[in-house]
């Protein structure tokens, strides 16, 4: 096998992957835009049923985790493996907290019978059905990305520990951080579209 240590190439690959992620989410944003234009009253009604406080809290958590991800990168560049590991751990932990909060939020909705396929759900106005379906699918796919990010950070943490990722070889950490920032930015758009816009 050819040995490559082409960091620029690796980063280019990651950026290209993030383009594909953008278009992947783009399909859902397109549906959101079209259905919001069709059913604007239903959408604002349904949106007011979401909990803004929880949404805001989760936003803060995710932005903070992006900060700690960036911090771990600058620490590892300095060779400070220990503080880089701590930042990585905090990033993964904040991701887990985000998911736990998301879980409680989903359970509350499902507890009220608001989920695709329930009898109550199918009796809702068409616009509300579409809004909540979009809510579940968009936050669900986003949460899946968060989950993948957490696993990636755990693996990187292990790699820092074992010496694979270190002061002069941090491209894996850098790419993981790029991915995490994308996950963050996706949420930055999801949050106002689902929770704030009325």
């Amino acid at each position: 096998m050819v040995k490559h240590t082409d960091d620029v190439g690796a980063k280019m690959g990651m950026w290209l992957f993030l383009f594909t992620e953008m278009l992947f989410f783009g399909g859902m944003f397109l549906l959101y835009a079209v259905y919001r234009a069709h059913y604007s009253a239903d959408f604002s009604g349904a949106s007011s049923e979401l909990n803004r406080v929880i949404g805001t809290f989760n936003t803060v958590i995710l932005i903070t985790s992006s900060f700690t991800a960036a911090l771990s990168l600058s620490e590892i560049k300095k060779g400070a493996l220990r503080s880089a590991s701590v930042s990585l751990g905090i990033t993964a932990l904040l991701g887990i907290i985000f998911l736990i909060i998301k879980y409680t939020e989903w359970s509350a909705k499902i507890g009220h019978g608001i989920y695709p396929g329930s009898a109550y759900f199918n009796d809702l106005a068409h616009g509300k059905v579409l809004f909540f379906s979009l809510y579940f699918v968009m936050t669900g796919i986003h949460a899946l990305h968060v989950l993948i990010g957490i696993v990636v950070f755990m693996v990187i943490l292990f790699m820092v520990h074992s010496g694979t990722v270190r002061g002069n070889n941090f491209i894996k950490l850098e790419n993981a951080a790029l991915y995490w920032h994308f996950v963050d930015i996706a949420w930055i758009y999801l949050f106002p579209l689902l929770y704030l816009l009325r």
Partner: protein
Amino acid sequence: MGTDFHTNTEGRKGISSWIFSTDHKRIGLLYLYSILGFFLTGVVIGLLMRLELIAPGKTIVSARTYDSLFTLHGIIMIFFFIIPGVPASLGNFLLPLQIGARDVAFPRINLLSWWLYMIAGITAISTIFLPGGPPDTGWTFYPPYSIRTPTNVSVAAFAAFIIGFSSILTGLNFITTIHRLRAPGMTWMRMPLFTWTLYSTAWVQILATPVIAITLLLLILERAFGTGFFDPSKGGDPLMFEHLFWIYSHPAVYVMILPAMGIISEIVPTFSRKTVFGYRAIVFSGLTIATLGYVVWGHHMFTSGMSDVSNMVFSFITFAVAVPSGIKVFNWIATMYKGSVEVKPPMLYAFAFIFLFSIGGLTGLINSAVATNIHIHGTFFIVAHFHYTMFGGAGFAFFAGLHYWFPKMTGRMYNFRASTVACITLFIGFNVLYFPMFLLGWQGMPRRYYDYPPEFHWNNLISTLGSWILAAGLLIMFTNLARALFKGEKAGNNPWDGTTLEWQTTSPPPHENFAEIPVVTQGPYSRKREGQETGDR
């Protein structure tokens, strides 16, 4: 180094030296064999469909089975043969060779993409055996029927979802490889045209495929949970599915045809003993096709209920795509002009390509005019048109490339007489099979129908006869190649006197492609070194 890649197994034995190899040449061949396997499966299904249509009424299968047959034929041929066909097999093998690299940028991701391809393929085929049976929606999975049907639409859609990842990974691998691993002196304007088309294709792959991934995922969620996005009874809009589906699936057409055009752009100058005419024009027309191809998807939906303004805009842009395609055809012909044309098998297939693709392209203009489109939409005319572009175009170019690079890949040469006979048989069979479909469609026979009134009998009968001629051609071609694989004469390193870098290494190439990475000092088709009077490239 030194030993060719067939003998250098990187320390692995038997089958695992192939299915776990990260050598781009081995992966290219893995892809080639798997893709041909799916192609032959698709061919058999196609032959069964034609046999059913040989006479009005029921002939060999029930109407329901027929629905499944055309769906499987579409899914297999589109997702598992023609989209990955050229880039993943020939592209994988040749891209690093053509730019003077030792491998692609991400060899392990390359292997992963083949594994995803196989997992997707097995998932798609498994629908035949699962309770509920194979999908019967057509490969386009249009709702609302695809939401209601009890067949395994979700499994098939999931297979297409997985193969999307495979396609994306190949695309981002190729782009990074071309940006990062070109040999010293290989500037952008010295890249071979096949590499250029792989580059344009790779961008289409990564920018369009995610859209179908999310679309199919939403369809699966729709079926599983009733989310309502595409279900009119819940306020959703099936037209949104069509938009999202074609935002990918039209650019995908260019994933099929662009690398095919790249193959022809390699073969024509080689066998005309001339530098290519209008190198820059071919490069930029390829990029233009990739860009315009993005914004024409609506021409699949002229009868679906879009606004007249949308119809007109999509129609206009579709006409515009004909311009760069025409530039390419013009350049190939101009390359042959006053060249010393040698009609060896790859060139013969290239001739067939240019002829068939021109018919496909010109009938495309008939489809893209809104008024005529409304008359022929959903008829056999469309079937004929896209088989002329996809099979007559991309398929024949794939065969041309296969014959052109066969000696490079295997180190052996096939029998010229047999491949000439095969090519002519294929060409005749192809036209007898598909040309009557233009007439049928114009007369109003709808596609995807199991039965037809007696006045359509003659053309259907001729078409079915053509399918048998075509099958005979395929049989001759593959037998000839398979025989050459084991018993062919040694081909030598550069049997066609090609000028691009892949011909400067041994056949088959050594494990890491080149003993020494070449330094590039001139354009890809320059014959200066032989003292001929030609331009810079």
